[in-house]
């Protein structure tokens, strides 16, 4: 692991990726099943500004896949014509010692309104999406 950033905001591409990581509501999160099938799903996520993404999930195929194969990809939507492509790869792990979602101020700052749209309190949301997944970003490609 080097100290150089995954996302270099001094370049136009890096600045665009950082904007997606900060501001996009959802990202495509792809795990791989034990049979080797890629399984994309749409998730809420919080970027720490450096190399880590935090997300919360129910117990699901996705969390079981991570336990068996930590390698994952994150991809933003793109512009639907083949441009604004940004794909991050990383290593995911379930973190049982992470705080619940409603105790992470930055997560709440990003998603409080969306949680309310689900007709849930932050505590109810945190209880339902109780599996914390930390993704250490290892690579970035796109254009």
């Amino acid at each position, binding site marked *: 692991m080097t100290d150089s950033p995954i996302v270099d905001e001094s370049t136009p591409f890096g600045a665009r990726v950082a904007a997606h990581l900060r501001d996009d*509501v*959802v990202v*495509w999160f792809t795990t*791989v099943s034990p049979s080797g099938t*890629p399984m*994309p799903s749409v998730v809420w996520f919080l970027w720490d500004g450096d190399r880590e993404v935090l997300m919360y999930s129910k117990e699901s195929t996705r969390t079981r896949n991570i336990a068996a194969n930590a390698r994952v990809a994150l991809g933003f939507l*793109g512009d639907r014509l083949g441009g604004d492509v940004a*794909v991050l*790869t990383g290593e995911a792990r379930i973190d049982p010692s992470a705080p619940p979602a409603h105790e992470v101020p930055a997560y709440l700052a990003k998603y409080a309104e969306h949680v309310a749209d689900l007709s849930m309190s932050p505590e109810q949301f945190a209880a339902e999406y109780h599996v914390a997944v930390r993704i250490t970003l290892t690579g970035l490609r796109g254009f």
Partner: protein
Amino acid sequence: MTGGPLVDETTSFGARVARHLRDDVVVWLTTVSPSGTPTPSVVWFHWDGDREVLMFSRRTSRVANIARNPRVSLNFPSDGVGGDVVVLTGEARIDPAAPRADEVPGYLAKYGARIGGGLDLTPGAFAARYHVAVRIELTRVRGH
């Protein structure tokens, strides 16, 4: 393999899936590398209206991945806030016997203007560059 359609256009979800498959310019294709890393990329594609998607590629890591592991997924971008989620899974194979891109009328009807306009290529030059035909047999669709 059942005889029923994979995409049931009589439902609102199926009709939306079919619309994406027919009209979207690009789709996210994810292959899996030998190390088990999911590798998404954006591709042009042509749906046959049933269970098959055809695409043309250069000889890239995505083609090498398919040769080792045919399991792939296709997903459309979604609406960006958690809706219009459509994910298809399938089995991909390289088809050396497929016609070239410039000999597939449905492909040219969909992409002819982009090949000549944005890429500034003749169909023949495009077909020579993107010469690896990949057929994806769709096996499952999920989403909402």
